[in-house]
């Protein structure tokens, strides 16, 4: 009775082990980094290249994909749509079956590079003769790690100041009081603009957009959260502490973050009932794409725009965006390189912008531009803009101006832990669990430990 049972069990275990050991793979088995000779701007490609994390969901996407496909000279393009699933991507690299190219946030590139999940694009850039000077300096620095370019950047997100003109006027204020050029004026404006009859907040005077915009407030106060070499966290410098104290203080003056967030969360952010249209928000810094949203859903809202400014009056914006990277083990690295290059060429962007312009014209709406991450393309597209009236023209002008005054954080191998550390610190302060200085001190220790460990791993891998 027992012997066959044991025999069967052994057979099952052996089968299971055999099957699962087949499934297990590591990055070690992937192919070597392609050389410059493998990338040739005159070559044509056959077969199909797989693209993970990109969905050509609008005319900007479809126009560019069509052109990139054409540039491959015969090869087909298979899009694996949806945001990049990091776990899925890394597992595919580990199993030796990655997509040919991925579409990732620029701030993820350092982590992927340091772990050997993607290949450096030095040979790709050289072989395909890609002029990297056309890309925005900050965008390119976000995908440069260990002195090599690891991804081709595209799109740019920047912040500008958005305000409700009617509310400002009623309070005797102007956009200059809330554009960041004078922090005392912002505090005063927030108190003048906010309304909370009976203790219930009805109008947020000024939303400093924490936790996500701490890097912007810190930079405005003269501090970077990360050193230029990406190795040292700089959370607890006096400038960052002061920036956090100020931005949190804005909420405290309006009844506390809890009330502001609750009102913010209950708003119809993307719809006709947005905070500006319903006169529930005085002013805030916000990414430029929201100008297009507001123009679409509430074209008659009483909006006023300006760049976000430093206390010295200079425009300032934190740059972020997407990028194209080639996974280690990509079976069509050369075609992937051509695809990335074509997607980000000036002419490709111009064709995409024309498609958007035509569509907007047909809808009777203005073309408000696209920030491409390519400085030459941006300059060309800026010439194609159509007027939507003085209010919206001012908004578009503001974000094109902001696009010329950006900063970013350098690529690093522990970006997720780095971000989590400072965001946790800000959240602890916002939730009333900690004060800015001790919260940032703790975040500094956590982030530095993560950076040290990740950089040590990179050094070990490259030596």
């Amino acid at each position: 009775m027992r012997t066959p049972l044991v025999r069967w069990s052994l057979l099952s275990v052996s089968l299971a082990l055999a099957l699962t050991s087949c499934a297990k793979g590591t990055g070690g088995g992937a192919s070597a980094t392609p050389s410059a000779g493998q990338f040739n701007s005159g070559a044509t490609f056959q077969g199909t290249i797989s693209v993970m994390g990109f969905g050509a969901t609008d005319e900007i996407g479809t126009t560019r994909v069509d052109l990139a496909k054409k540039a491959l000279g015969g090869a087909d393009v298979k899009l694996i749509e949806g945001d990049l699933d990091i776990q899925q991507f890394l597992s595919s690299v580990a199993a030796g079956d990655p997509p040919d190219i991925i579409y990732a946030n620029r701030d993820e590139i350092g982590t992927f590079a340091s772990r050997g999940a993607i290949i450096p694009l030095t040979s790709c850039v050289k072989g395909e003769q890609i002029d990297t000077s056309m890309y925005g300096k900050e965008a390119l620095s976000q995908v440069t790690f260990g002195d090599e370019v690891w991804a081709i950047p595209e799109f740019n997100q920047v912040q500008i100041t958005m305000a409700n003109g009617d509310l400002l006027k009623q309070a005797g204020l102007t956009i200059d009081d809330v554009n960041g050029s004078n922090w005392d004026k912002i505090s005063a404006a927030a108190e003048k603009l906010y309304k909370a009859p009976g203790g219930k907040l009805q109008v947020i005077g000024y939303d400093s957009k924490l936790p996500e915009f701490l890097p912007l407030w810190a930079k405005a106060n003269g501090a970077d959260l990360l050193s230029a070499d990406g190795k040292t966290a700089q959370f607890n410098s006096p400038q960052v502490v002061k920036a956090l104290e100020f931005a949190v203080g804005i909420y405290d003056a309006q009844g506390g973050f809890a009330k502001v967030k609750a009102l913010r969360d209950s708003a119809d952010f993307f719809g006709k009932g947005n905070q500006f249209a319903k006169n529930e928000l005085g002013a805030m810094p916000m990414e430029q794409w929201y100008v297009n949203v507001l123009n679409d859903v509430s074209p008659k809202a009483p909006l006023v725009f300006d760049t976000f400014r430093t206390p010295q009056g200079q425009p300032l914006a934190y740059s972020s965006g997407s990028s194209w990277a080639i996974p280690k083990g990509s079976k069509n690295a050369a075609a992937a390189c051509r695809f990335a290059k074509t997607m980000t060429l000036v002419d490709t962007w111009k064709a995409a912008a024309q498609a958007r312009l035509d569509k907007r014209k047909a809808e009777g709406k203005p073309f408000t531009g696209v920030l491409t991450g390519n400085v030459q393309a941006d300059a060309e597209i800026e010439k194609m803009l159509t007027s939507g009236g003085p209010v919206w023209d001012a908004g578009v002008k503001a974000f094109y101006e902001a696009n010329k005054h950006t900063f970013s954080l350098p690529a690093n191998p522990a970006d997720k832990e780095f971000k989590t550390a400072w965001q946790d610190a800000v959240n602890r302060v916002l939730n009333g669990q900690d004060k800015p200085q001790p919260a940032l001190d703790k975040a500094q220790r956590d982030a530095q430990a993560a950076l040290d460990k990740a950089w040590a791993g990179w050094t070990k891998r490259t030596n």
Partner: protein
Amino acid sequence: MSRSHSTVSFWRTMRWKDTRAALLFISPWIIGFLIFTAWPVINSAYLSLTDYDVINDPSFVGFDNYKQLFEDPKVGLALRNTALFTVMSVPLHLVVSLALALLLNGATKATGFFRTAFFLPRMTPPVAIGILLLMLFNGQNGLINSFLGVFGIDGPAWTTDPDWVKPGLVLMSLWTVGSSIVIILAALRGVPQELYDSALVDGAGWWRRTLRITVPMISPTLFFLFIVDSIAALQSFTEAYTAFFGSGNTTYSNDAALFYAIYLFQQAFEFLHMGYASALAWLLFIVIMAITGIQILVTRRYVHYEGGQQ
């Protein structure tokens, strides 16, 4: 002797044939179990002794990950949050389930409609429940605070005040009480009517009948729910993650909602510390085993089995 020997041999052959047939029939499950459960469990034990980031080969680090568990303040925080949530949610879940099941059991009209109505919320995807929490418990315009406002109560900031985040999650967990109601309802149907009739003759009221007959008679079911709900609460993830760490809030988070499973997920799939996450998983396994063992020991004498003690 010879005949006896051949009889034994016959039965042995038959038994082996039966065993072989039984094993053959359950072999798909055995293979599935070995591949998709046993092997990952064994592998996670190995990975917990390594530094592993999915891409590169695991490197053996001994018990460093387990040592780090005791030095990581977030592990303690996550364990405390999870334990507190479990202590608050499981008894409430049981009491509400029992109360609603008793009500449904006593209903005489439209019983099918009411049972369906109480069970329907159970069909809501957990992610949607997380988003629903943010809407219902919004401190300014949420339905809960609006309702409290009718009575002149200024409701708390459920979604941001660390003192109110867990109570909000506990109340929201009642959204899925439907499945427990159905299970208790089935148990209530099994209580012999004669017991109630005898109690009525003796003059026992509704409350006394419930306490002295109903609860003891369905105690095995309540015990089952107690264990299952406790394990589920200790593994709570989706609703809290969606509301405070995921799509509901991409940058805002709240320490008070950092449950153990959420921290484990962050370490594994956000920071790619698979070795450390495996060690976290083993600690959770041991904690759940220990708590379940204690629950079984402590509650044994309160559970009544009609067929005798199990």
